[in-house]
């Protein structure tokens, strides 16, 4: 087990700056998730850590070794890809044993058997050890792919959207399992995703990435409750944060520099029209079963919030909106922290 640090790392592909003077520290035993939309530079960052790309500038350290110039095999890291890459004609057992049988390692066969059995138990695929990989379901294949990464016990695990090819239910299951395994092994994970639920539920820290830079890193709750900017605020939360121009709520007390009001569901109270900060109309109520989403229009702006299941509201109703400690952003999209305005 080890920590990893990327210090002032940059990588360009032609005219495109994929990673731009990025600095990131992943502590030993941490589960750090890089979250950002397509093209933000998450995967390139991960590939740089793995040694699949070489940085144009900057330093990469694993433990106390400078690995910037080392090939992947010399870094003692393991990489799990979005698409499982198994040997289809091998059994699950042989797929799992494969990384241990590399000529560089020369582990005795009973040692291999022990490690494979342990890993299979961890991933709950013991009963499948004798099956050919080609005969597994998608979820089982991805578990074997993860197992192949785990069996070696490297100092660092790098994962690139390993769950995104699975269906929703399986993804939810494997999320819990992956987190459990990481905690049980005390392993260090650097994990890339664009799925905010994966980030929120598994990470000890989320690094939000924008145009090749980490714009904020912190515990999920910190990122959710105290985002540094509009960009970060928009990455987390379902329904996503409502961003309204200051002028949409003239009655609301706000810092003088505030240009944008950021209101999550918990910052909004729907009230009878009088005595509200802003007024609008119900456009649509979306019944999702576990929650009802209220879509409203306030001075020409769309607002989405959660409504109580028994809220007596229907389309066309006039409503008032009260803000409860919303977030405020300035003209650059940076959050105005209370007390500094």
């Amino acid at each position, binding site marked *: 087990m080890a920590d990893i640090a990327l210090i002032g790392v940059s990588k360009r592909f032609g005219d495109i700056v994929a990673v731009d003077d990025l600095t990131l520290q992943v502590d030993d035993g941490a589960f750090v998730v890089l979250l950002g939309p397509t093209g933000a530079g998450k995967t390139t960052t991960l590939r740089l850590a793995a040694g699949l790309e070489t940085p144009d500038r900057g330093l990469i350290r694993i433990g106390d070794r400078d690995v910037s110039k080392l090939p992947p095999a010399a870094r003692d890291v393991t990489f799990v890809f979005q698409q499982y890459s198994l040997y289809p004609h091998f059994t699950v057992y042989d797929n799992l044993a494969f990384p241990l049988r590399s000529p560089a390692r020369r582990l005795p066969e009973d040692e291999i058997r022990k490690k494979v059995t342990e890993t299979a138990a961890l991933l709950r695929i013991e009963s499948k050890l004798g099956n050919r990989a080609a005969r597994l379901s998608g979820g089982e294949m991805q578990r074997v792919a993860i197992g192949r990464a785990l069996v070696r016990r490297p100092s660092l695990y790098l994962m690139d959207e390993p769950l995104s090819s699975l269906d929703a239910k399986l993804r939810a299951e494997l999320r819990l399992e992956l987190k459990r395994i990481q905690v049980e092994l005390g392993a260090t994970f650097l994990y890339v995703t664009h799925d905010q639920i994966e980030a929120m539920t598994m990470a000890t820290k989320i690094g939000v990435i924008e145009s090749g830079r980490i714009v904020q890193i912190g515990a999920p709750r910190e990122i959710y409750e105290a985002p540094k900017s509009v960009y970060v605020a928009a990455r987390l939360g379902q329904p996503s944060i409502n961003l309204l121009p200051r002028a949409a709520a003239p009655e609301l007390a706000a810092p003088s520099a505030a240009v944008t009001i950021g209101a999550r569901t918990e910052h909004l109270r729907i009230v009878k029209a009088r005595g509200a900060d802003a007024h609008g109309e119900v456009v649509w109520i979306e*019944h999702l079963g576990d929650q009802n989403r209220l879509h409203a229009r306030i001075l020409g702006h769309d607002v989405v919030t959660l409504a109580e299941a028994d809220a007596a509201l229907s389309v066309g109703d006039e409503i008032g909106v009260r803000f409860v400690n919303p977030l405020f952003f300035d003209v650059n999209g940076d959050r105005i922290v209370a007390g500094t305005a």
Partner: protein
Amino acid sequence: MARIEIEKLHRAFGDFVAVKSSDFVVEDGEFFCLLGPSGCGKTTTLRMIAGLELPTSGRILLGDEDVTFKRAAERDIAFVFQFFALYPHMSVRQNIAFPLKSQSVPRRERALRITEAARALRIEPLLDRSVGGLSSGDRQRVALGRAIVRQPRAFLMDEPLGALDAELRQVMTGELRALHDRLHCATIYVTHDQHEAMSMADRIAVMNHGVVEQIGSPREIYDRPASMFVADFIGLPPMNFLNFADRLEAGATEIRLGQAEISVPTLRESLPESELALGVRPEAVLFDDASALRGAVFGTEYLGTTQIVTITTDFGLLRARVGADRNLHVGERLGLTFRPEKLSLFEKQSGRAIYTALYEGAAHG
């Protein structure tokens, strides 16, 4: 515009029955979802309605017309696929115009319809761009444009958003529903994503192994699932099942889980001693120290506004959705109660829902 009626529609491939004698009606102007896991028969059903596949038996009516054995081109139905096939060397306008050209619609009418379709989809500024440089969201909008420009009598969509990433899918879900509200044309939409179905559909048909297990509004399906399969397929996390064995008496308003007495909707049928499951939605779980039903926190998943708490009990694992402000730690012992009006009961062997006051007035699938 037309309603679509499916009668005893059946499709077998050798020994394998893909769709088993299904019946349903999609009303004119309705947004109807076929929902189920892969291999449940939803796509085969859709392809038969489109005319891309012929049924083994049964009938398909479009309006008053029997189209069961008509060719796809004669059905006046537009089909939108998951992988949008656009002509890469043509502009957006030419792509949208294509179906009209092949129907030899006069030039002036063509121009008018293209403008209308582009306006409905808010892609007017893109009309003269080449499709090669478009984002995946805009490509899907163009594919939809090509479907709506024909002004068909019905739309069939096969996971049209399946290839998009989560954020864009959410946006497109809203757009598709808004588009439907403008066009009011019968739409059958196939998906395995329950969230899409819940969000867009007027009614949902949940399919499993070629059989329609339940048809109802999103709310009905969520609140009154007809079977354990439906209850488990809908909701994230899905409905919890607490396992117990007992006999049930019509008129009873409580069941026993070990030492705990649990209030349930009034039972409307009696059952001899059987294996049963109490169905509990995650948001119907409440914490109450006084309750005789005990559990221990196994893990929590923080989601911002809410958190999912996984709890072990003597009757099985339970997932609860509670506010994120509640502080819980692993191993903590909890007393549990449930919102009685939200509970379902199932007979485990058949998986069917037991009839209670909750289900009164509901259409059973």
